[in-house]
């Protein structure tokens, strides 16, 4: 079934927008994610993290809406910039610090690092690096739920505008629509794929126009505006749950960091940083709180302190834990132990 792609008017003034009923809750998850990631960056700079650090600075509003508005039983397929969404979906902070700091008690036990983590048993899928691959996996999880007679579930898969250009992404979108899967795909156009700007990524006017071609319903979103994120992504989740065709939301932001912390992003011109999409969603949300007097300065300070305490605790705990060791590792890539192929080394 094909639906006409629709677009919401891009919101212009934030202050007039009444905050969503979960605005403050969402703000606190954003604050926690930002605090955590700032700390991870300083650990990385101090040489305490092996491998890369990839943060979601500037994308917390989009991400938090994804994780927060899902329910128990829903499937979430986060990507690299989704700390806020992962936390709001239920990922404990200790999972993050254990993975980054290489504790053998973490969900990936030292076998995979940084953002390549998940809890498939809790419906938080563990992304592989290959962009676009998780869309069809999410569709498959939804097909399974349908087979099992479950009701009222949705899946939400995140993607960047760069990942939207892979074959796997196109295949995944198409099969989602063919299966009429209750899927929401939230695409965040942060205007760069690593160092490559939009004009070398795609040539269509607006990525949301692709929705109709896939058999999705499409919505645009100012990703710097937390209320809009909660409204638009919340609406998409609701429609998917109600049996509407799959939903594509395309959010516009600027990546307010390097691709990873190894990258100074010196290729981003100053004038891009002055664009409306370059505003910091966390600062914007805080301004809304102040302007509408949703919380006083004391409360905000207490929230900040609480976030810092949680982060410090998770880091301290993970730092005390043992690292995995090669000679104690169970080098077995199959769950069926008697089918492991033994090559004498």
């Amino acid at each position: 079934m094909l639906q006409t792609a629709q677009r919401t008017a891009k919101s212009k003034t934030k202050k007039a927008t009444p905050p969503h009923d979960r605005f403050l809750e969402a703000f606190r998850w954003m604050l926690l994610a930002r605090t955590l990631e700032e700390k991870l960056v300083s650990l990385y700079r101090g040489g305490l993290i092996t491998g890369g650090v990839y943060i979601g600075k500037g994308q917390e509003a989009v991400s938090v809406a994804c994780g927060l508005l899902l329910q128990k039983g829903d499937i979430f397929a986060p990507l690299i910039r989704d700390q806020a969404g992962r936390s709001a979906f239920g990922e404990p902070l200790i999972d993050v610090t254990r993975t980054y700091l290489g504790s053998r008690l973490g969900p990936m036990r030292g076998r995979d690092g940084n953002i390549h983590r998940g809890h498939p048993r809790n419906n938080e899928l563990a992304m592989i690096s290959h962009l676009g691959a998780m869309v069809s996996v999410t569709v498959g999880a939804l097909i399974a739920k349908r087979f099992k007679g479950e009701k009222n579930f949705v899946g939400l898969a995140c993607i960047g505008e760069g990942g939207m250009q892979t074959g796997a992404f196109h295949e995944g979108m198409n099969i989602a629509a063919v299966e009429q899967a209750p899927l929401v795909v939230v695409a965040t156009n942060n205007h760069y794929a690593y160092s490559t700007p939009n004009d070398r990524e795609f040539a269509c006017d607006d990525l949301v126009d692709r929705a109709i071609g896939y058999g999705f319903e499409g919505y645009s979103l100012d990703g710097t505006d937390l209320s809009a994120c909660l409204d638009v992504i919340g609406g998409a989740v609701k429609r998917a749950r109600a049996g509407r065709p799959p939903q594509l939301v395309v959010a516009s932001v600027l990546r307010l960091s390097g691709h990873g912390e190894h990258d100074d992003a010196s290729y981003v011109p100053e004038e891009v940083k002055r664009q409306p999409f370059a505003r910091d969603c966390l600062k914007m949300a805080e301004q809304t709180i102040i302007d509408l007097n949703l919380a006083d300065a004391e409360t905000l300070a207490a929230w900040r302190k609480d976030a810092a305490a949680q982060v410090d605790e998770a880091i301290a705990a993970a730092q005390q834990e043992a690292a995995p060791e090669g000679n104690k590792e169970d080098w077995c890539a199959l769950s069926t132990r008697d089918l492991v192929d033994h090559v004498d080394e």
Partner: protein
Amino acid sequence: MSITYLEAIREAQAKLLRDDERVFIYGQDVGGTFGGAFKATKGLAKEFPGRVLNTPISEDAIVGAAIGAAMQGMRPIVEMQFADFSSIALNQILNNAGTHYWRTNVPVPITVRLPSGGTKGSGPFHSQSMELIYAHYPGLIVMTPATVEDAYTMLIEAVAIDDPVIYCEHKYLYYHLKADKLPEKGLPTGRARIAREGRDLTIVSYSAMMQESLAAAEELTREGFEVEVVDLRTVKPLDTDTLLASVARTGRLLCIGESFPWGGATAEVIARVTSQGFHLLDAAPQRLNAKDTPIPYHPNLWNAHRPNAQKIATKARALLRE
């Protein structure tokens, strides 16, 4: 009654759908009244409504969806229309299915059926044997049944296994091989089979080349040689013990594969037997594979490209003389 290799595959799937509600079949043209490019799912969509599903031509997404469904407790069987097109799904198979248990402790029980190998006139893109690629990567089991009986029991076993299984079914054997009846049970997965006993030479093979090897062995009896033929059944895991035991009896080893010559199951067998059983060998082990070019279309060229009973016998004679 007589049943073909292809019918055995269909029967195994019918049984799986009947006995296990977690099973569904996903692939191009498998559903409706059509039942697959080779009819391996003929009639199943009608018998099991909603569980034999046609898909778009999207190999990556087909396998991706199977992976997601398997994580949620289903037992999907994916039919690739031809093994060759599984190249489009390599990423999902190798990087997603193959790594998932190791990374997350959650296994991904998918079965991917690959209609493999050459048939007359099929050309470069409908003839490939891809077991090497799948066996090379961790986290996958690779089955290569060479008999009607194994085609049946191994497919049932593949779906029961909690890990991803690449099931390479040979298109040449589809109609050429027949059995009287289907067995209840086969050898355990991972065990090679002595297809024919002998004491002069061990030929190790799998899939269609196992049948060619048996024919070569038959030809060599007329010359007074007793050739042992080992059917690997699974190329991963590889049953090194059975291989070493056979070479201990014969002292000579010839490995036959239909895939391209660089690397592969034949090279792996020789590497293992040589490193673990060098003292058992009376002559340098040999192997025979297809040529290192794309697989040709014309039957004359195709016959020259792949091993067959005659070429195997010639190679065996030379090795027996050493």
